């Protein structure tokens, strides 16, 4: 885990002091509303429907038990006792007071956390694979590279007033659990024929009003040039991205307008000039950052004995067996596993966690691991380093806390934005839709029969709930002041990211669960044995679904 040194700490403290002064000058009338807006946004502060919202940065989704305890304290003292985990692996507080935000930032700084660039038209928090460093299928651990990109982007003087927000994702695995192709820049660690490490660089992906999958502009960028190349992409975007229309201002519009080849040529032209310049990464600097991510002191366990013990437990307890099958993930180190802390269950908005639960998870991270917790873009948490022999004890604890719903990756594991209950941008509520679907499809045998299935809900076209890359996507729309829901089918968020297609006219909120059921009927009737929803959809197309739903 990256640990701040005195330099990192000093910068965060100075940022808190700067924002405290900015807030005071705003309240004194020295800064206009218009001027204060991007300053507060770049410190994570939105003004929402009912109260301000503060978004806290969780760089590439890595948290510690110490940080969770501080977050619990902040949720209790400054908010209503809970926090919300987002699809960008960040955390949101929904009820802070504007005047108290500088104090919250100071509290966060005590545990090396901040809200820098979690909003606004700047480079946002970088995201990655939640299994970084422990996935068996990894080319290379992405976390040191994420940290290098984080430092490059933090308080970057040239790119604080971009045309629009800018999101970067970096993954070390071909399975691309970071959904990098729907980011402004997607970086995939790859090796060339000589075995050298570098990045495949994709630009212009994104969801929102005009969803697009990123275009490959550099199949292999040698690692020393990573930051120089990112700088060149951002410079071309900063100069030429549209600024007169908010809805045309993302880099994807520029890449589409110019074509990826022309865009790439402009980047290469700038890059050639600055190649080997002061942003070049050195072996020493990379080694220094990598040293923060060396493996923790794993114990040697006998994997065969651990497996035998698990099998015995599983035979004795079917609930444990179900949980193990759905919520436990393979680990690179024999005898260890990664465990999803499932934040999805009916009656609780997806991604919401109470203060006392944060503290309980922190205790579990210390007891069943090395104090580390990850946030996932699917709005769950992950304990990355659990001994297989501890799985049963951990399951009992998670079950007691309500985090052991054995439904990770199923229809019940819904990704959902805060929607109209909180967000001032939303056209419609999303949380009640998620709950209605979860309640209708509670039967575990049915969920397991469906298998892996991603259902994503966004309350508006800004697509925080990633509805375009759900196998089933649901989008809240406004029709003459009434809330309706459009249904999309066939998106996928894996290594072959693709965008969902609209099924047809939208539905009322009450109709949505029924529509989902009809879609699932078609899938179950038409699939070949073992065929996933994505593959069935790719084979039979959207028409059979349309006929069933509208026929």
């Amino acid at each position: 885990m990256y640990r701040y040194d005195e330099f990192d700490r000093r910068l965060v403290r100075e940022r808190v002091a700067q924002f405290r002064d900015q807030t005071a000058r705003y309240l004194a009338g020295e800064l206009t509303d218009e001027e204060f807006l991007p300053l507060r946004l770049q410190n994570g502060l939105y003004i929402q429907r009912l109260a301000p919202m503060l978004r806290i940065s969780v760089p590439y989704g890595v948290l510690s038990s110490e940080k969770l305890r501080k977050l619990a304290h902040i949720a209790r003292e400054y908010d209503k006792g809970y926090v919300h985990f987002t699809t960008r692996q960040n955390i949101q507080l929904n009820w802070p007071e504007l005047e108290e935000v500088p104090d919250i930032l100071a509290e966060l700084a005590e545990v090396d956390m901040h809200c820098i660039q979690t909003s606004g038209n700047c480079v946002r928090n970088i995201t990655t694979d939640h299994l970084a460093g422990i996935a068996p299928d990894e080319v290379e651990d992405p976390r040191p590279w994420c940290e290098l990109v984080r430092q490059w982007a933090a308080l970057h003087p040239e790119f604080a007033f971009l045309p629009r927000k800018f999101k970067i994702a970096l993954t070390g695995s071909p399975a691309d659990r970071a959904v990098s192709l729907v980011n402004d820049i997607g970086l995939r660690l790859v090796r060339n024929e000589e075995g050298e490490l570098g990045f495949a660089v994709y630009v212009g992906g994104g969801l929102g009003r005009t969803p697009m999958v990123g275009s490959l502009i550099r199949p292999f960028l040698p690692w020393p040039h990573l930051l120089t190349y990112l700088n060149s992409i951002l410079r071309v975007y900063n100069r030429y991205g549209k600024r007169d229309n908010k809805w045309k201002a993302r880099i994807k519009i520029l890449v589409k307008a110019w074509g990826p080849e022309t865009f790439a040529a402009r980047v290469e032209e700038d890059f050639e000039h600055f190649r080997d310049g002061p942003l070049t990464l050195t072996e020493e600097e990379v080694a220094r950052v990598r040293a923060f991510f060396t493996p923790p002191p794993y114990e040697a366990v006998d994997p065969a004995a651990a497996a035998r013990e698990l099998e015995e437990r599983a035979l004795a307890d079917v609930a444990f067996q179900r949980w193990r099958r759905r919520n436990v993930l393979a680990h690179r180190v024999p005898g260890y596993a990664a465990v999803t802390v499932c934040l999805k269950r009916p009656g609780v908005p997806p991604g919401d966690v109470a203060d006392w639960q944060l503290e309980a998870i922190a205790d579990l991270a210390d007891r069943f691991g090395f104090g580390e917790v990850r946030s996932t873009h699917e709005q769950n948490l992950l304990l990355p380093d659990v001994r297989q022999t501890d799985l049963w004890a951990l399951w009992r604890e998670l079950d007691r806390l309500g985090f052991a719903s054995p439904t990770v990756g199923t229809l019940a594991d819904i990704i959902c934005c805060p929607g109209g209950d909180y967000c001032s941008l939303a056209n419609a509520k999303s949380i009640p839709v998620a709950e209605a679907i979860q309640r209708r499809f509670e039967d575990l045998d049915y969920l397991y029969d469906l298998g892996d299935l991603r259902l994503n809900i966004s309350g508006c076209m800004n697509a925080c709930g990633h509805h375009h890359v759900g196998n089933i996507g649901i989008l809240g729309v406004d029709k003459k002041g009434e809330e309706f829901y459009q249904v999309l089918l066939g998106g996928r968020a894996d290594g072959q990211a693709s965008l969902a297609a609209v099924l047809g006219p939208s539905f009322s909120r009450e109709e949505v669960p029924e529509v989902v059921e009809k879609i699932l009927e078609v899938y179950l009737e038409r699939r070949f044995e073992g065929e996933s929803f994505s593959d069935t959809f790719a084979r039979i197309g959207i028409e059979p679904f349309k006929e069933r739903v509208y026929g």
Partner: protein
Amino acid sequence: MARIIRGGEVVEDPWILVEESPPDPVAVPRPAMLPLSAWLSLPPEVRGQGDTAPWLASGEEFEEAVDALLQAPLIALHFPVFRDGRHFSTAFLLRKRYGYRGELRAVGHVIRDQLFYLTRCGFDSVQLREGMDPEAALASLADFSLVYQPAADDRAPLLRRRS
């Protein structure tokens, strides 16, 4: 005279910002900052006197005029609104790609909260928007004592300092 920030202090400055292209650019009172096209239309010997300077609109293409720009004693970069950040890149390119050594000034809607980033991108003078006190703003030049990444200033980035 305008009160601007330069070299870490507030100074009186004689340069006059001519916003629209004048009918006869030679005839304007000097020292004058003229729109780029008007400045380029001046006879070379007038430009050589050093009391005229170009100002660039945000997004204005300047690469074709770089040879002339490098001779200017001052280049002003105009911010139509503070959140239009294109000139952060213009300044960086003029300094680090084209090697401009004269004075680089930010004018228009510029706020004190941008001072640190402006100096990092190569600006050495700033005229803040009307109504913003430049004396009080000097404090913002020191908002941060460290930087992660290299830019157009000579601060040593942490990228090089730690390993």
